[in-house]
C-alpha cells in the first residue's frame, strides 16, 4: 500500500522553478530517502505534502487522501521535522512540547519524557538558550511525540553530533519497526545509504530516478583505476556505459556499467602497469546519475 502518492506535482514560485512534474510513491513501512543537492526541490515537495504551500498543478495523496483538501485530517498522523527549527521564544522546552501535544488527541506524557531521555534533552531549559543542535532535538521529539504513522524529516541531522546522529537513527529504526513510514530528505548520501530502503533522486526540480538502495549499489557499476604504460588517446575509452571518465597522463579512471569483457578487450590491446576495480561509493553512483541526466 502506498502511504504517499505524488502525481505530477509542480510548483512555481512566481516565475522561478520549485519542482516540475514530480511523481513518486512511498510504500507503507519503508524508509524512503529523498536526495538531491540544495535547491533541488526537496523542501518544496515536502512543504506541499504538508499543505504549507499549494501546488501549481498536479496532486499528492497521503493515506489515500488529497493532501490539500483533507490536509487537517491527514496531518493528524504525520510527524514533521522542518530543516530549520524555530520555536516560540520565552518558552521552556516542556511547554513547547506540551503545546505541540495539545494539537493531537491522547498524547501520552510518558512518551514525551521517554523521547527526551533518548535524545538527551533537558526539558526545563528555555528554548532561546538552546544551541542549534539542541533545538534540532526539540524538533525531533516534537515530530515523534504523537506517535505518527508517517514521519517526514527534512534534513534532520544537521547540527547533531555523531553520537546523537546514531541515537537518532536508532530511534527512527525503532519507529520504523513499529510500522511507521519515513520520508527522509537529505543531501548527504552516506546517511541515506545507512537508513533507507529506497531513494528518489531529485535534480533541478525534477525526479531523476527512484531506485532500491541495493539496486543502486549492485547495479554492476564498477570503478576502474588504471595506470597505463603509455599515454592513452582521449577517445580510447569512449564506450557506452562509461562515465566520470578522467585521463591524466597515464592514469585513467572511470565508472563503468555494462559487460566487463568490453573493458578487458580494450585493456588487452595495451600495456597496463596497475589495475584496480572496485565498488563505487553511492556518492559516485549518485554523481553518475547527475552527469548522465545533465
Amino acid at each position: 500500500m502506498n502511504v504517499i502518492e505524488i502525481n505530477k506535482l509542480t510548483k512555481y514560485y512566481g516565475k522561478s522553478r520549485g519542482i516540475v512534474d514530480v511523481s513518486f510513491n512511498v510504500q507503507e513501512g519503508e524508509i524512503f530517502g529523498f536526495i538531491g543537492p540544495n535547491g533541488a526541490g526537496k523542501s518544496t515537495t515536502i512543504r506541499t505534502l504538508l499543505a504549507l504551500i499549494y501546488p501549481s498543478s498536479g496532486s499528492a495523496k497521503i493515506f489515500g487522501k488529497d493532501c490539500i483538501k483533507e490536509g487537517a485530517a491527514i496531518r493528524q498522523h504525520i510527524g514533521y521535522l522542518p530543516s530549520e527549527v524555530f520555536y516560540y521564544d520565552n518558552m521552556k522546552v516542556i511547554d513547547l512540547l506540551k503545546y505541540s501535544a495539545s494539537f493531537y488527541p491522547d498524547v501520552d506524557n510518558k512518551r514525551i519524557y521517554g523521547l527526551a531521555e533518548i535524545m538527551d534533552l533537558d526539558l526545563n531549559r528555555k528554548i532561546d538558550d538552546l544551541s542549534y543542535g539542541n533545538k534540532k532535538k526539540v524538533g525531533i521529539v516534537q515530530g515523534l511525540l504523537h506517535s505518527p504513522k508517517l514521519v517526514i524529516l527534512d534534513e534532520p541531522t544537521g547540527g547533531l553530533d555523531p553520537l546523537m546522529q546514531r541515537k537518532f537513527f536508532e530511534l527512527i529504526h525503532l519507529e520504523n519497526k513499529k510500522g511507521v513510514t519515513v520520508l527522509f530528505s537529505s543531501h548527504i548520501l552516506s546517511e541515506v545509504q545507512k537508513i533507507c530502503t529506497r531513494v528518489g533522486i531529485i535534480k533541478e526540480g525534477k525526479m531523476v530516478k527512484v531506485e532500491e538502495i541495493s539496486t543502486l549499489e549492485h547495479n554492476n557499476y564498477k570503478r576502474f583505476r588504471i595506470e597505463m604504460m603509455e599515454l592513452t588517446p582521449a577517445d580510447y575509452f569512449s564506450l557506452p556505459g562509461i562515465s566520470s571518465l578522467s585521463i591524466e597522463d597515464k592514469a585513467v579512471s572511470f565508472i563503468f556499467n555494462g559487460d566487463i569483457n568490453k573493458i578487458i578487450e580494450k585493456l588487452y590491446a595495451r600495456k597496463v602497469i596497475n589495475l584496480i576495480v572496485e565498488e563505487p561509493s553511492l556518492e559516485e553512483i549518485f554523481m553518475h546519475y547527475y552527469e548522465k541526466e545533465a
Partner: protein
Amino acid sequence: MNIYRQEMKMSLRSMISWSLGLLLVLLFFMFMFTAISQDAALITQMTSQFPPAVVRALGLSSLDLSTVLGFYGYVYLFILLTGSVYALKSGISALSEEVRAKTADFLVSKPITRTTIVTAKIMSVITLVVLQTVIYIGGAFIITQLITNQYFDEATFLMINLSLFLVELFFVGLGLLLSVIIKRIKTVLPIALGIVFVFWILQMLNQSLADPILAYLTPFAYFDIAKIIATGSYETVYLFCDAILIAFFTVLTYIIYQHKDMPSV
C-alpha cells in the same frame, strides 16, 4: 482553543502595559483640567483668532473645554490614537508573528485547518482589545471622577469610550488583512504608527474641509465626540460603515490566508 490560549499567554502582558500607558496619558491630561476649565473662556477667545480651518482641523470648534465631557472629548483624541496604534499592531502581529518568528511551519503542519488558525488568532486579538477597553474605561472613570470632582453624564461618558473599542476593531481588521497581504513584515510598530497617522491626517482634512466623502475613509470620523455629547448616540450611517468594513477585512483575511503559501525559512 490551545492556539488561543498560547496567543493570550504571549500577548497579555503587552496589552496590560498599553492599557496602563493609556491611563497614564489620561491622568496627565486630566490634571490640567482644573487649570484649563477655569480659563476656558480665555482659550476659546484665543482660538477664535486662529483661522477657522485650523480650529476645525484641531477639533477645537465643537467641544466646550469648561465641562468635564467637553474636556475629556478633547483629551480622548490622544487616547484614541494610542489605542488605534495598539489595535493595528496587534492585528498585524497576530498572523505575521508566526512568519517572523519562523514558527509558521510548526503551526500550519499541525492537524488543523487554516480557518481554525485565523479564527483563534482573531478571537485572541478581540479578547485583548475587549480587555483593554474594560481596563481603560474602568480606570478612566475613576480618574475622571477623582480628579475633576464634578458631575458628568455617565452614560455619555461610556458612549464616548466605547467608540474606542469600535475604532480599535476597525484597526484590528485592517491589521489582519495587511498582515496576509504584505509579503514580509519585518517590524510592526513603525508600520502601525505610520498607518494610524495617515488616517489621522485624513481626519484632520475631513474636519477642516467638511467633505462628505472623506469622512467615510477614516474611522476617526465615524465617532464625532461633540455629536455624541450633544445627542447621546452614535450616527447610524458611520456605525454601519464601521461594521461593514470590519466584516470586509475579516472575510478577506480568511480567504487570503486560506490560499497563502507559507514562506520558507
